[in-house]
């Protein structure tokens, strides 16, 4: 009823605030500890690189999702858009459609353009036609997955020994995987855009209070469209990378449930699901936590299904801690 912030005793309030800020980091450290104890090889340098590499799709898609959620929306079409991008690039690269040049560059460009169109569709439906983001992106989720299967004719498209595969495996001097570098770039650019640019402030303002944002002269329609386009473009990059790494594009499974991991990372990272202040670093850490859960379970030979249950529990717990108790 009353919505002023409720203050509890110093100690509890302090603990809460602390958990809110550092909860994700603790969870991350605990997971690492569990793994190091149960598995001696875990602390090897390679495991570290592996974690960063494997978490790549989750990390970048959760950065895209961060734009969407802090702008007051949600995008559940991410995984399907990943599949479209992967499949489209694969067919073009493999020269399946004779009317397209058989070129990697063209494949990548087409993948990104088509993904961008999906994002624009999401954005326009949400901001111009004022439809619920969940409904719009759910529709895209279905359409895009269908399109991916149509493009690939329902088959898994594999390729090997192309320069495209190199992105997934290439390492820079010092054994640094190039993926990690790209990943870092994404994180830095996202942080810069959200914290330092007019656009970033405007996204968060819209998420906080759309009506006030409009009165402040923010072109809410345009900003909203851009948010969804960003999310889809990032999804395309993620889709391309996953297919490069696996040397294949599986239209049915590529990116499946990726949107859930992305949403979960943003939620655990402490950004309000109703929009507003975007938390970048904790989102990245949370994405790694989600990846770590999967790794933990794989390394200990536990059935993958448990990973899902565990993820679920962690998400609920994290969101509960983050929640503004007064709402």
């Amino acid at each position, binding site marked *: *009823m009353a919505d*002023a912030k409720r203050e509890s005793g110093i100690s509890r309030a302090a603990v809460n605030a602390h958990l809110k800020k550092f909860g994700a980091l603790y969870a991350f450290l605990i997971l690492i500890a569990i793994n190091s104890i149960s598995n001696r090889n875990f602390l090897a340098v390679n495991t570290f690189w592996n974690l960063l590499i494997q978490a790549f799709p989750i990390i970048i898609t959760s950065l895209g999702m961060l734009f969407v959620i802090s702008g007051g929306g949600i995008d559940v079409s991410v995984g399907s858009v990943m599949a479209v991008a992967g499949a489209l690039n694969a067919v073009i690269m493999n020269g399946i459609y004779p009317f397209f040049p058989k070129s990697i560059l063209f494949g990548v460009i087409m993948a990104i353009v088509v993904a961008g169109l999906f994002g624009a569709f999401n954005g326009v439906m949400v901001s111009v036609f004022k439809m619920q983001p969940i409904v719009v992106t759910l529709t895209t989720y279905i359409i895009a997955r269908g399109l991916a299967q149509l493009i690939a004719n329902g088959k898994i498209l594999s390729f090997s020994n192309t320069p495209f595969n190199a992105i997934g495996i290439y390492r820079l001097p010092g054994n640094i995987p190039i993926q990690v570098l790209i990943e870092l770039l994404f994180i830095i650019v996202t942080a810069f855009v959200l914290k330092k640019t007019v656009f970033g*402030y405007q996204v*968060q303002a819209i998420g906080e209070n759309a009506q006030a944002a*409009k009165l402040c002269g*923010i072109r809410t329609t345009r900003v909203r469209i851009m948010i969804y386009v960003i999310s889809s473009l990032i999804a395309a990059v993620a889709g391309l990378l996953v297919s490069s790494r696996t040397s294949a594009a599986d239209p049915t499974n590529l990116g499946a449930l990726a949107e859930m991991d992305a949403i979960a990372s943003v939620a655990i990272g402490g950004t309000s699901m109703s929009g507003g202040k975007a938390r970048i670093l904790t989102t990245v850490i949370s994405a790694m936590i989600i990846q770590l859960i999967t790794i933990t379970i794989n390394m200990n030979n536990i059935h993958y299904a448990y990973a899902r249950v565990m993820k679920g529990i962690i998400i609920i717990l994290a969101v509960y801690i983050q929640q503004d108790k007064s709402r």
Partner: protein
Amino acid sequence: MDNNLLLEMREIDKRFSGVHALDSVDFSVRKGEILALMGENGAGKSTLIKVLTGLYRKDGGQIIFDGTERNFHTPQDSQRAGISTIYQEINLIPHLSVAENIFIGQEPRNAFGIDWDSVNKQARQLLLDNGIDIDVTQDLASYSTAVQQMVAITRAISQNAKLLIMDEPTSSLADDEVQVMFSKMRELVAKGMSIIFISHKLDEVFTICDRTTILKDGKLVGSYDIDKITKLEMVSKMIGRDASNVLKRTVGVYEEKPGTIPLVHTKNIDNRVTLHGVSIDIRPGEIVGIAGLLGAGKSEYAKVLFGCDNTYTGTFEVEGKPVRLKSPKGAIDLGFAYCSEDRKVEGIFPHMTITENMTITALPRISKFGVVDSKKQKAIVDKYIESIRIKTPSSEQLISNLSGGNQQKVLLGRWLSMNPRLIILDEPTRGIDVGAKAEIEALIREFSQNGISVLYISSELEELIRNCYRIVVIRDGQNSVELTDQDITEENIMKYIAKNAKETEVDHG
């Protein structure tokens, strides 16, 4: 112990990070009195109330209510004990109907659960008693802030409490509504209820209150009987220095330069809902006031000027050229600024800092290639924290941690920093203390001297009379009269502001 006391709070202490909001404050309320709790913005008034009702936990001190020591843990606790509270930020639920808002938690029931017929009927009756005639089945959000305040008051009054707390209940009400509320308050007190009344409007305090307790910077200054203290003394105690300068104000004069075309020329603005022909001209450097009752169309007209309402017919020209604004962005590009009356819904970004809140509109101007120049950003914020005296430990404080009046100042800073050609101020001094009010009014007059036009909307006639060169009174969405110079008097405005009795009957016939 004095058994004439309903409430006694002793040595109350409350700290927030960086702020000692209440420093060992003693406070008491007698049975059957109306007590004014006074102090500058950020003095700790709302905090004291929230500590009492259990919304905040106190860090120290003792609360004795109705003879026993109490520690309310939630607002519901205190409500059950007989304390009914209207918080400063209206705490109703916008997407429930007006009737639901009045009865939430205490709905009359019948065999099938909540008896909606009876809820709606009773709610309507209660509001009618308070002079408000509206459709109670509509969402609360569809009504103006003033109506919402009346709903909150109606709800609080209907609870039959021992103590009624009103934290700035009148900030957007016009005189008529305030009078209705006062007569209600007198009835309640006659029945033995006590009332704590918080307001920055001194006239109200001197009209309705028996006694006053003054806070400054979280400390008690003292308690005084109203008939033993003057306005000047009261304000001096609030600000901690002699207030003669603060209360003395001069009215400026508008010198029309020959040949100036009006900055804004509107004729017969009509949106078929709230406006049915409003015509107002605003010349460069002029301060034009709009007076009118609740629902007369004041804010709605402002929204047309600022591009929020694109459904109107009529003439709208800027410097002689016809315009049709499709969005606030367009208005801002023309050099217009609009400080809305509804701070919470149309103003603040609650989880953002003062800096972010104040500069969000100016960002495109203080950026290069879309990257914000944080030095310029900081310069703006520092300037206005200083010049309109925003009370805060730092510019990085979340705006929702500021007192109500200080939040309002941040929003004013947001628009002042735009160097507008026309600034539309809709209840700009809502919730702002006397000292700051004087400063803001001075600032507005300085604007006008520098050629900036001001459209000044206020429910406080005195404020309009003091500041405006010209006042347009609107009634039922139409021009009622336009007053200038010597014609600007309270009597004149009052004469044209209200519908006369006959018209009212015709309206309902």
